[in-house]
């Protein structure tokens, strides 16, 4: 048995490689180098015995040696335990069990040394060097460079072979220094090792003519460190630059990523609107203010005489009449001069291009964001293999050093666990699929019914209101006048909760349920939009009629004036009629009217939203909170309770609001600025509201990683709002006396004018060709083909992706199986080994096989693969089970042929070998100390 024992140790040493070396090093200072070098030049360290550390070494070596014979059994301890014990050895002399093994090893090594000593002819020289180093710190410190130079003088006489071996040794030391940080050793030990290695390298590098680059190296390292620090700071700075990041994180930590996704969307929207505002303000509003004619100079920039009395009344201003109407905010204020100011700024052209550019930019940004989001991919629930493990082991940020952040972190970790749990529960749910399907169909049917009903109701009401419009206004009651608005808001109030109730039938995952809810309410709101646009076009048509007559009258009046003037003064040099701008007759200017409608709508929307939050959330929370002290039932747990954050309503509100902005921006340039203010305030306001008055959802769920559903809705709304604007620009004639396009047949004529007048002729030609239907049609065709092609390829990629994912999953399973198998076969071999006759020489099995008490293998019922390893040796049953398992595995034979020796990847050279001695020595006592 002793021979077997030794063999075992040898194998172990091979396994652990450098680690063991290191371990021996720590035993005593004097032996460090020797041990380090042992694999290659074990016997070199001839006379370590003369060092100061001798006594220590001696007592470490000898005392344990005696005991080692007695209880070799307990030598099989985990690596790290040994190492710890090493320390304690140094401290307290004799104590722990792990030392014995070390002692054995050292002993062995000494034997080796003895053998080699004879060979090493020049061992003395090296021994001297080592000795000197071994002498410790004080000497090193004093001597420093001088000693090394002295050494190098000695070393000059070394032979070639010695030089190379020395070189190797130095290299090895260097390697050790470099990897020292990776070793999970105690600081004290590392320190000692480091010092020795360093001293060694310092001494002998000189001999080998190296070490010149150290300064450079140190400098490089320092720079690298500075770089890291800089990058870190820069990252922090970048994070600090993202507006409201902390606010949103806070909301996220308490309410989950789904609520946070709304705020992220809001922030994104704010960014978009800021850019739109910059366009509008910089290219349209600012030039007009700086270089255009001032207020009161021409009729369109003056409040008409009739309105002037009430132009500053607050009620009028709140309706965006009076001075507001004739201000920079609206279309009508802008002059139609082709160029303004010294810069010859072409304002009308700029107005048109910005109006269209807003759409172009928005489209581009939305689509780009969608593409990028889908790139990040994922529909919420990440399908990574370590979702929960990562959450458990890496979610706490050790950097957190302030209680408030810590609170938030706790909340967010809890929330994220809950989110994942919800996902997991959904994954595991599989009940009556038929019933579920039936319920879903039923729910969709119900919702379609209610959507159809409300659509018909809207249609009916609008139709009626048109009839009412033809009647005399005085005969109508208040209700009849406001019927449309009333019905609309009623629907908006009743339908969403109704949908939500119906949706509960479907039992979707909350994330998918949110999508459905969003889609349904979106369809409902489309009715809203439809009625609004319908009414608006009626109004515009009426205004156009009215304008036509006024325009004719004006032209007629002017003609009269000119003929009168020329006949009276008998001159052709006629000055324009001298009328005060406020008195000029003007048309209704339908563009401004449309703009005012949109602004009004936006403002009322803001009011409603804010009031809803104030009453529906804040007041409710107040009542629930404070009336609870004197109420018959528990308000907090019972009926009213606190509100939840209404994600779908808020998101849709935001989306439709943005639609209003897009539609209205062309007619009311000030609208964008207004919207920026709105988004800014609502960010703070809603953050506050949600944090102070709302409670998290009952089932906190993870938002889909890409906000692409929101984006898709936004894109739809963008498209819908693009249509009416482009329609009006392309077909309706602009008002004759207001706005930048007055006097032209069509708004887009500005572009034609520019091409004709300002650009070289050939561009005009190109333009004509480009607008030729013969060219446009093929272009469209080409695009369709391209879309088809790209679509097909993307589908292919998707399929390939899925395939790969499947393969990965399979590979993972396979790996698991294989490992399992190996363990099992090893287990089998182990058991066989245990049955061998010389087993009696092994340590008593009872002591070693005792399983740690905490381990409860309740998984056994779930997967039969689980081998009860701890008890496997004791009962024969375990073997049988494992056999079954190995038969079930894909390739049992390959696994069986594996030798039972050193197990799997435990031979890697990092840290302590994980789970050392799986089989026999695994029985680490549960408590270390």
């Amino acid at each position, binding site marked *: 048995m002793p021979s077997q024992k030794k063999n075992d140790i040898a194998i172990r040493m091979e396994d652990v490689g450098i680690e063991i070396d290191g371990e021996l090093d720590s035993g005593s200072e004097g032996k460090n180098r020797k041990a380090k070098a042992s694999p290659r030049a074990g016997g070199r360290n001839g006379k370590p015995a003369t060092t100061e550390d001798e006594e220590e070494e001696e007592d470490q070596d000898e005392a344990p040696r005696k005991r080692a014979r007695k209880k070799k059994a307990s030598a099989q301890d*985990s690596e790290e335990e040994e190492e710890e014990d090493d*320390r304690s050895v140094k401290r307290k002399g004799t104590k722990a069990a792990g030392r014995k093994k070390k002692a054995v090893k050292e002993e062995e090594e000494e034997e080796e040394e003895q053998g080699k000593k004879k060979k090493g002819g020049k061992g003395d020289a090296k021994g001297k060097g080592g000795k000197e180093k071994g002498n410790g*710190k004080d000497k090193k410190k004093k001597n420093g460079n001088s000693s090394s130079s002295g050494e190098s003088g000695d070393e000059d006489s070394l032979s070639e072979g010695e030089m190379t071996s020395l070189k190797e040794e130095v290299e090895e030391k260097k390697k050790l220094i470099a990897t020292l*940080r*990776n070793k*999970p050793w105690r*600081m004290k030990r*590392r*320190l000692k090792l*480091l010092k020795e290695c360093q001293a060694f390298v310092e001494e002998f590098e000189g001999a080998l003519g190296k070490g010149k680059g*150290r300064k450079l190296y*140190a400098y490089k390292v*320092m720079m690298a*460190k500075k770089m890291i620090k800089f990058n870190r700071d820069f990252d922090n700075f970048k994070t600090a630059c993202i507006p409201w990041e902390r606010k949103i994180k806070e909301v996220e930590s308490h309410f989950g990523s789904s609520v946070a996704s709304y705020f992220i969307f809001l922030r994104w929207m704010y960014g978009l609107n800021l850019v739109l505002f910059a366009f509008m303000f910089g290219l349209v509003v600012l030039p007009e203010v700086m270089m255009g004619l001032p207020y009161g100079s021409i009729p369109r920039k003056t409040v008409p005489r009739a309105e002037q009395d009430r132009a500053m009344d607050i009620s009028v201003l709140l309706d965006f009449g009076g001075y507001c109407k004739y201000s920079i905010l609206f279309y009508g204020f802008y002059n139609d001069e082709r160029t303004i100011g010294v810069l010859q700024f072409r304002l009308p052209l700029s107005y048109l291009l910005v109006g269209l550019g807003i759409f172009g930019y928005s489209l581009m940004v939305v689509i780009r964001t969608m593409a990028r989001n889908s790139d990040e991919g994922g529909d919420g629930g990440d399908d990574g*293999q*370590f*979702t*929960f*493990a*990562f959450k*458990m*082991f*890496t*979610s*706490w940020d*050790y*950097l*957190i*050093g302030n*209680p408030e952040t*810590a609170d938030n972190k*706790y909340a967010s*970790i*809890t929330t994220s*666990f*809950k989110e994942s*749990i919800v996902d*997991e529960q959904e994954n595991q749910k599989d009940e009556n699929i038929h019933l579920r399907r039936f319920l879903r169909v039923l729910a969709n049917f119900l919702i379609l019914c209610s959507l159809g009903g409300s659509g018909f109701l809207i249609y009916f009401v609008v139709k009626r209101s048109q009839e009412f419009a033809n009647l005399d206004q005085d005969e109508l009651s208040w209700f009849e006048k406001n019927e449309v608005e009333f019905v609309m808001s009623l629907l908006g109030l009743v339908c969403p909760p109704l949908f939500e109730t119906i949706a509960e039938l479907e039992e979707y995952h909350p994330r998918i349920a949110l999508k459905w809810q969003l889609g349904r309410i979106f369809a409902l709101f489309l009715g809203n939009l439809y009625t609004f646009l319908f009414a608006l076009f009626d109004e515009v048509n009426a205004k156009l009629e009215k304008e036509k007559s006024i325009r004719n009258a004006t032209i007629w009046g002017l003609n009269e004036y000119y003929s009168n003037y020329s006949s009276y003064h008998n001159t052709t040099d006629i000055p324009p009629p001298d009328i005060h701008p406020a008195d000029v007759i003007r048309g209704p200017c339908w563009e401004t009217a449309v703009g005012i409608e949109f602004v009004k709508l936006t403002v009322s929307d803001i009011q409603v939203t804010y009031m809803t939050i104030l009453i529906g959330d804040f007041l409710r929370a107040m009542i629930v909170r404070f009336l609870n002290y004197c109420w018959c039932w528990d308000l907090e747990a019972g009926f009213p309770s606190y509100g939840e954050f209404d994600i779908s309503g808020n998101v849709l509100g935001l989306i439709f609001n943005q639609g209003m902005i897009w539609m209205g921006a062309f007619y009311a340039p000030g609208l964008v600025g207004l919207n920026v203010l709105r988004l800014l305030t609502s960010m703070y306001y809603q953050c506050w509201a949600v944090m102070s008055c709302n409670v998290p959802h009952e089932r906190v769920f993870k938002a889909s990683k890409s906000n692409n559903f929101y984006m898709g809705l936004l894109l739809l709304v963008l498209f819908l709002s693009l249509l009416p604007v482009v329609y009006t620009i392309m077909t309706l004639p602009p008002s004759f006396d207001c706005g930048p396009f007055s006097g032209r047949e069509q708004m887009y004529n500005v572009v034609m004018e520019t091409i004709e007048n300002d650009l070289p002729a050939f561009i005009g030609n190109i333009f004509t060709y480009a607008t030729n239907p013969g060219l446009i049609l093929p272009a469209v065709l080409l695009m369709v083909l391209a879309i088809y092609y790209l679509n097909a390829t993307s589908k292919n990629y998707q399929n390939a992706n899925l395939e790969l994912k499947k393969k990965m999953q399979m590979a993972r399973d396979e790996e*698991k199986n294989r*490992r*399992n198998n190996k*363990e099992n076969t090893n287990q089998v071999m182990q058991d066989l080994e245990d049955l061998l006759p010389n087993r009696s020489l092994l340590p008593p099995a009872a002591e070693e096989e005792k399983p*740690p008490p*905490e*381990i409860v*293998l309740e*998984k*056994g019922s779930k997967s039969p*693969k689980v081998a009860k390893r701890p008890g496997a040796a004791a009962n024969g049953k375990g073997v049988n089970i494992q056999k079954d398992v190995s038969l079930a595995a894909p390739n049992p034979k390959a696994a069986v042929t594996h030798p039972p020796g050193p197990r*799997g990847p*435990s031979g890697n050279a990092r*840290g*302590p070998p*994980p*789970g050392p001695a799986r089989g026999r020595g695994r029985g*680490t006592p*549960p*408590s*270390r*100390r």
Partner: protein
Amino acid sequence: SLKSLIILFDIESGYYPVCTSDILQVQLSFPPPRLFDRYRDLAPQLVPLDYTDQPDVRLPYELIGSMPELKDNPFRQRIAEVFSEDGEGNMTLDDFLDMFSVLSEMAPRDLKAYYAFKIYDFNNDDFLCKSDLEKTLNKLTRNELTEDEVRMVCEKVIDEADLDNDGRLSLEDFQHMIVRAPDFLSTFHIRI
């Protein structure tokens, strides 16, 4: 000398040199011996300025755990226990340096993983078993999850990371899992 100090500095990730008594003697101000100062500030009356004769000073866990860097950490006690030599959280200067060296930004992943494993291994049996996971989870969520949820999460964790199907996580399993974690390195570190 300065040169060797720089190398020391390099190797022990900026935290190291302060601990060696000789450097304290040399009274070098580069890099600033912050860590030693921090250690000493915890108990100026206990910790001597001069470490030449290797005084055996231990600061009790109460002092270590009250450091601003640690006091909000749910695992502070475990950290202190793992890094302290006596296993009870009472730290010598070397332990202290050890701790911050491992938790420093420069420490390699494997080393961090090893110590993370030890930290989460509450009962010191070299395996993360269910009870360890439950303790970890309860510390992370401040007992906000229900028992069912806790059990489910623990089962899932073992299911995900347990490669050899023994119903608990060995260091090997843990390392295999943690090297794939995207933000393990960035979260498992303490700046001081």
